[in-house]
C-alpha cells in the first residue's frame, strides 16, 4: 500500500463515520479537526474501524499521529504493509 492509498482508506473510514462531511477537498497537511466537524469520539471511531477492518491497533499514545491525512499516511502505511502474522 502506498501513502496515497492509505489516505484513501482513511478518507473512506471518515466518510462512514461522518457521512454528511464533504471530503472532496480535504487538505492532507492540515489537521482533520481543523477542516472537518470531527470530535474525540469520531477519532475513536477511526481507531475502531482500523482495528476491525484492517487489524491495526493504534495505541492511545499514538492517536496524535492521526491528526492529518499526511500524518496518518506516515504512521499507518508501514502498519498496513507489515507482514501479516498467522
Amino acid at each position, binding site marked *: 500500500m502506498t501513502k496515497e492509498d492509505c489516505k484513501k482508506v482513511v478518507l473512506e473510514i471518515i466518510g462512514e463515520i461522518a457521512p*454528511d462531511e464533504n471530503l472532496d477537498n480535504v487538505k492532507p497537511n492540515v489537521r482533520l479537526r481543523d477542516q472537518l466537524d470531527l470530535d474525540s469520539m469520531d477519532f475513536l471511531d477511526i481507531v475502531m474501524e482500523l*482495528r476491525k477492518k484492517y487489524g491495526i491497533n493504534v495505541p492511545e499514545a499514538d492517536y496524535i499521529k492521526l491528526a492529518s491525512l499526511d500524518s496518518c499516511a506516515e504512521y499507518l502505511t508501514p502498519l498496513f504493509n507489515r507482514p501479516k502474522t498467522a
Partner: protein
Amino acid sequence: MQRARVVITGIGLTSPNGDNLSSFRSNLLAGVSGVEFMEHRYIGKVPAGICHFDALKYQGRKDIRNGTRAGSISIYCSHEAVADCGVDWAGVDKSRVGVYIGFTEHGSVETEYEVFNISQFNYDVRCWTHHHNPRTVANNPAGEVTMNMKITGPHYCIGAACAAGNNGVIQGVQMLQLGEVDFALAGGVSESIRSFGIFAGFKSQGALAENADPTKASRPFDKARNGIVVSEGGCIYTLERLDDATRRGAKIYGEVVGYCMNSDATDAVLPNPVRQAECMRAALKMSGIAADDVDIVSTHATGTPAGDAQECKALREVFGASKNTRINNTKSFIGHAMGAAGALELAGNLPSFVDGMIHPTINIDEIDPECAMEQLVINKTQRLPRAETILNNSFGMLGINSCLIVKKIA
C-alpha cells in the same frame, strides 16, 4: 391542594401506520393496520410494527449513526410536537423546558448489537464500541432531544414497562404543576423491535403473536388471539399550563384532568384486575367525573389470552353500567408500541373531540366471551353519542398500572 390546570397543545408522533396525527387518525378511522413482517437476527420472520418516518428531517447522518433509534424517534416526535403547538420556539426560555420520556426498557437493542458485533471478531472486547455507554444510559432518548433542540432544562426518562407512555405524560403534568418548568415535552417511545430478546422473551412466555397475515396478528379480544405484536413508535406531547396556553392563544387538544399510577404487588407478568379497577377509579375521582361521563375508554389490551380477559374484568367493574361509554383498542392496528403505547393510543383518540368519531378495535372475527362488552366498538368506526372525555389505560410488567383522563376544553 389547588393544582394548575395542564393542557395538551401539540402532538408529534410516529407509529407503524402514520408519521403524524392526521395520517395516524385517518388510518385508524379507515381500519388500516400498520403491522408487517420483519426479519430478525436469530428469530427469523416475525410480525412487527415498524415506523417509516424520515429521521433525516431533524438529524444529520452522523448523529443518527452515533445515537439510538429511541433517540431518533424522540427527536422526530419532539420537533413535530413543537411545530404543531405553534409556539415561537426561538423565543422560548429553554432552561424552563423539561423533557420527560417514558420507555419500557432501554439498552437491550444496543447491547445485543454489540455482543453480535464482537462475535464477528472472536469476542475481542477491544471491538466493543465507545458509543455503548452514552447510547445505553437510562436518560438516552430524552438527553438526545435536549442536545438536538438545545434545551437546557431538566431531562430524564421514566422506566415504567408498558405503562410508560402515560407515565411520561403524568410526569410532565406534575412538573408543570410544581412550577419546575414552564413547558414540557412528555410522552413515550419504543425502539424494542430491534431487540431480538424482546421477541424471544415473549415467545418463550407463549405471548408472541403469530399469524400468516401480519395485519391480522394483533387481535385483542378476539377468541383466536395468540399474543403480542411488538412495535416501535413514539408520541411526544407539548404540555403547558392552561393560563400560559390561553395567553398565547394556543390550540388546545384537551386538558389532563386526572390520572393514577398504582401497583399490583402480585405477579411479574399476570395483571391484576382489582388493582387496574382501583387505578381507573382513582383517576376518575381525581377528575371529579363519573364513569358514565367517560366517552372513550382506550384499552391497554395487548392480545394475550390472559391479559385481555383480566382488563375486561376491570372494565366491567368500573364501566359495566356506563351506557354512554364506548371502548376501543389501538394495538389491534399498530401492535404493542411498548413504552410509546399509552401516549400513542391517547393521541389516536384525541381527534374524536373534533370529529366526533371513535375508531374500533379491529381483527375481531369472533369475540372471546370473556372479553365481550356491550360498549366495545368492533371492526367498524362509529359516531360517538358524545365526545368530551377519554380515559386511557396503560399497564405493564411487574404490576404497574397507569390511567390518564383527558377532557375536551369547552
